């Protein structure tokens, strides 16, 4: 039974992907994508219901699975090398060779001697990731159906390129499932490289010059991580005689040797590249040229989450080391600086990208803080962030298709044009920003779990204050519209295709309900994982409140009181009589224009054009990025030097 479930989760997406590559018609494509998504969601639930497991598949297609994965691994690296040669890039070729040679060395000298063990395994962290892929990933793929139709109509393509698009999109889900269910690092490495190739293909999907350039950047940065991973395979085996994660984590906190610590650093380095941590943030920012479903997938349930997954996964193994403290500082630094960078941006996708990097920074920091409370915070942030961020990307995609811009300044008054999408965006923003929702709860957990280090608390707290600025002004300007003449709530002006609307709505409900269910999520998902590796309970959860020695966060009371206030306010606002509408104040000099912001001037009407403060002299990319990169690289160097 278990074998079938794992097979369905990892191999079915591959088969569906191949089928999608062959299907040229919209109808069958729709059925395959929706059916695959439904099966993945169902199987992820079934797998979760079964709980943790370890599994050693005996044979696959009549072959030894280890041999099969090794073969596929070399095939994949050959594909990458082929791409590198085709692009005539010496850097990519070098990075490709730097992976093939160590991998060859590893397979030739060690792999045959390695004791056979379970190559697949799952605990709650893996199962959470599978659930995220199964639900959030599938919803994003379904959204892609409606989005790509519109997208290609807009581009005016003669021949549809959707088979290629959905091939990689669905393949991605399988690769991600494989990655999180693998227990052997050699297997993880294979799926790791598979996600790199998928993201390269998807980022460059539109084939414009910019798309190609950004996809190459994503490729080389992730290959840098791949090189570190390949070297780590050798280092891990040399230091410990095993590449099985379950063996490496068998003695948590039991003083890893220096050689092993160096190997963990290499793996974390690979994680940093994949999670687009500083100074590798540019590949994720560049990835926004891809069609929106790609961004949504990269940011929510796949790709970047693979990076933090690996770092969180290894956290117990490097607990209590100086590497751990430095990782905490490194993540917190990313959170603070990307929050500042996001303040300087008006491009919605870039704001979301920086916010993703920042939130992943918090997860990395949580792994580095390495206490039961912080690990629980990291695991839960992984969940809440995936849902809210997927929602926000899907909203921006729908908005961009309608208004032709992703600049937030162009979204002023969107509530009058696209009431539903604007309201969902505001909902997404509020779930990212405010209590009692999950993202903020985990931020609170992270800050309080860092209490032993005032510097860390300081950085996390400052970052948290900065995020308020860029989220609030975005939510506010979406609502900035005069009262519609027909009534207080504008009639639904824009309607997206059902395949886009339904995933957006479901994710919005998911984001709110996940916040409401946070005590449950802690008890049934995060706490069991934490207790595998750490002694002592992180939080005492009772009556919907999280309590620890450091403080208390009352989820249910907050939901109740703030929710009551909100719904009373909503009812009040909806029931306003039409006569309460008034024009905005313009010193009595308004022209009576429908926009409501045009002054009567001596030489004719003068429109007041509002704009946000972007603090570009302080928060501009051109001001900050260079310094941030220098500091981040120094921190990485110190991390590595500190081990040696």
């Amino acid at each position, binding site marked *: 039974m278990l074998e079938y479930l794992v097979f369905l989760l990892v191999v079915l997406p591959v088969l569906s992907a191949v089928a999608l590559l062959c299907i040229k018609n919209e109808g069958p494509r729709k059925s395959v994508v929706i059916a695959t998504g439904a099966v993945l969601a169902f199987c992820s639930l079934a797998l979760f219901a079964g709980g943790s497991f370890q599994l050693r598949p005996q044979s696959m297609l009549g072959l030894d699975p280890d041999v099969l994965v090794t073969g596929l691994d070399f095939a994949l690296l050959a594909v990458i090398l082929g791409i590198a040669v085709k692009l005539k890039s010496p850097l990519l070729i070098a990075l490709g060779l730097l992976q093939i040679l160590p991998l060859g060395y590893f397979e030739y000298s060690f792999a045959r001697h390695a004791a056979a063990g379970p190559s697949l395994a799952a605990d709650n962290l893996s199962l959470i990731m599978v659930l995220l892929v199964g639900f959030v990933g599938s919803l994003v793929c379904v959204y892609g159906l409606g989005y790509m139709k519109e997208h290609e109509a807009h581009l005016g393509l003669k021949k549809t390129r959707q088979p290629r698009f959905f091939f990689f999109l669905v393949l991605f889900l399988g690769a991600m499932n494989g990655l999180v269910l693998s227990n052997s690092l050699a297997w993880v490495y294979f799926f790791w490289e598979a996600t790199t190739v998928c993201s390269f293909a998807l980022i460059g999907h539109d084939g414009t010059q910019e798309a190609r350039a950004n996809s190459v950047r994503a490729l080389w940065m992730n290959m840098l991580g791949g090189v570190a991973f390949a070297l780590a395979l050798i280092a891990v085996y040399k230091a410990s005689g095993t590449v099985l994660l379950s063996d490496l984590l068998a003695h948590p906190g039991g003083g890893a040797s220096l050689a092993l610590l160096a190997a963990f650093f290499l793996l974390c380095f690979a994680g940093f590249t994949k999670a687009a941590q500083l100074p590798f943030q540019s590949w994720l920012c560049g990835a926004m040229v891809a069609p929106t479903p790609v961004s949504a997938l990269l940011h929510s349930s796949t790709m970047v989450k693979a990076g933090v997954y690996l770092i969180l996964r290894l956290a117990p193994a490097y607990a209590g080391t100086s590497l751990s403290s430095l990782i905490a500082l490194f993540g917190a630094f990313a959170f603070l600086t990307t929050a500042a960078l996001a303040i300087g941006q008006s491009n919605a996708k870039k704001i979301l990208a920086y916010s993703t990097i920042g939130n992943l920074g918090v997860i990395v920091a949580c792994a580095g803080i390495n206490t039961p409370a912080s690990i629980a915070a990291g695991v839960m942030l992984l969940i809440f962030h995936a849902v809210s961020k997927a929602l926000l990307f899907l909203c921006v995609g729908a908005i961009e298709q309608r208004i032709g811009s992703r600049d937030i300044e162009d979204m002023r008054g969107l509530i009058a044009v696209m009431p539903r999408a604007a309201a969902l965006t505001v909902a997404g923003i509020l779930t990212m920003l*405010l*209590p009692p929702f999950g993202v903020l709860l985990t931020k*609170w957990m992270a800050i309080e779990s860092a*209490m032993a280090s005032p510097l860390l608390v300081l950085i996390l707290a400052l970052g948290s204050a900065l995020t308020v600025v860029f989220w609030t002004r975005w*939510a506010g300007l979406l609502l900035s519209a005069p009262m519609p003449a027909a009534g207080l709530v504008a009639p639904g002006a824009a309607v997206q295709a059902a395949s886009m609307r339904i995933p957006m709505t479901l994710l919005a409900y998911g984001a709110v309900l996940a916040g409401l269910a946070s005590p449950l999520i802690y008890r049934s998902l995060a706490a069991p994982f934490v207790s595998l590796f750490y002694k002592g309970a992180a939080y005492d959860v009772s009556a919907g409140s999280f309590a620890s020695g450091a403080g208390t966060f009352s989820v249910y009371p907050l939901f109740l009181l703030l929710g009551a206030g*909100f719904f009373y306010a909503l009812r009040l606002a909806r029931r*306003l009589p039409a006569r309460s509408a008034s024009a905005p104040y313009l010193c009595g000099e308004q022209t009576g224009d429908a926009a409501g912001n045009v002054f009567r001037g001596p030489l004719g009407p003068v429109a007041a054009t509002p704009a*946000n*403060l972007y603090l570009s002299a302080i928060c501009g990319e051109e001001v900050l990025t260079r310094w941030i990169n220098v500091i981040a690289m120094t921190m990485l160097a110190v991390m590595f030097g500190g081990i040696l």
Partner: protein
Amino acid sequence: MTSKFLLALALTIAAPFIGGLVTGIDRKITARLQSRYGPPIAQPFYDVLKLLGKDRMVVNMWQALCPVVTLTASALCVFLFGMQADLLLIFFVLTVGGVFLIMGAMAAPSPYSQIGAQRELMQMLAYEPLLILVFVSFSMVTGSFKIADVYAYGRPLLPQLPLMFIVLGYALTIKLRKSPFDIAACHHAHQEIVRGVLTEYSGPNLALIEIAHWFDVALILGLCSLFWSTSALGAATLLAGAYFLELVIDNVTARMTWRFMLQNALGVGLALSVLNIVWQSFNN
């Protein structure tokens, strides 16, 4: 637990009266400092009652929604303070109020409320880090973020965190919209933004925001009192002194720009905090 709950409830009910009264006294003393007679001390209550009786006029529905949420959040903060809850939690709930106030202001296309909203954001950017720093410094002394542990600590915090009191003073000046940081909602008639972030709120909506502001005043005074939590008399003296100093600063300074505010509040605030926190960690 029950007695704590009742105390918190009583505090929540009393808070707007305390806040309103403080505002009334504030106006009276300010008037005297400017050689005016000034309004009666209960004037803020008369104003709000009058506003509550007016028709609810809005530019769009969000303007009716936002003040209610702001008021809920502000009242909740005081309630949480009464429950001696988590300081960070109170801080985050306080953010809810600020965020909805700004969203409501941005919902109106009027340039005054737009500029006011942007400036209010800058004010939040200036005072939020300072408030957090104050809470972090509390946690370093008492070992937790719970207000209950401040009271359980048994000694006044002021001698250990003197610089943090000044930092809180900065945050207070900004949050209470006092000069030189009254940049988002300046009430002086000759200034160009016509109360900025509050321009488009009128009638009952404005009244709700005013009441929310009273809650905030009460909360901030409560936070100040934590610096001398061991004695009611000590706390009262500290509060009276701090608030009077606040009034003097309000009257002797001119309104500055948001750039000045960010540089000054964050620069000085961060420097003082680091000094105090480093000094504090060496002491331990």
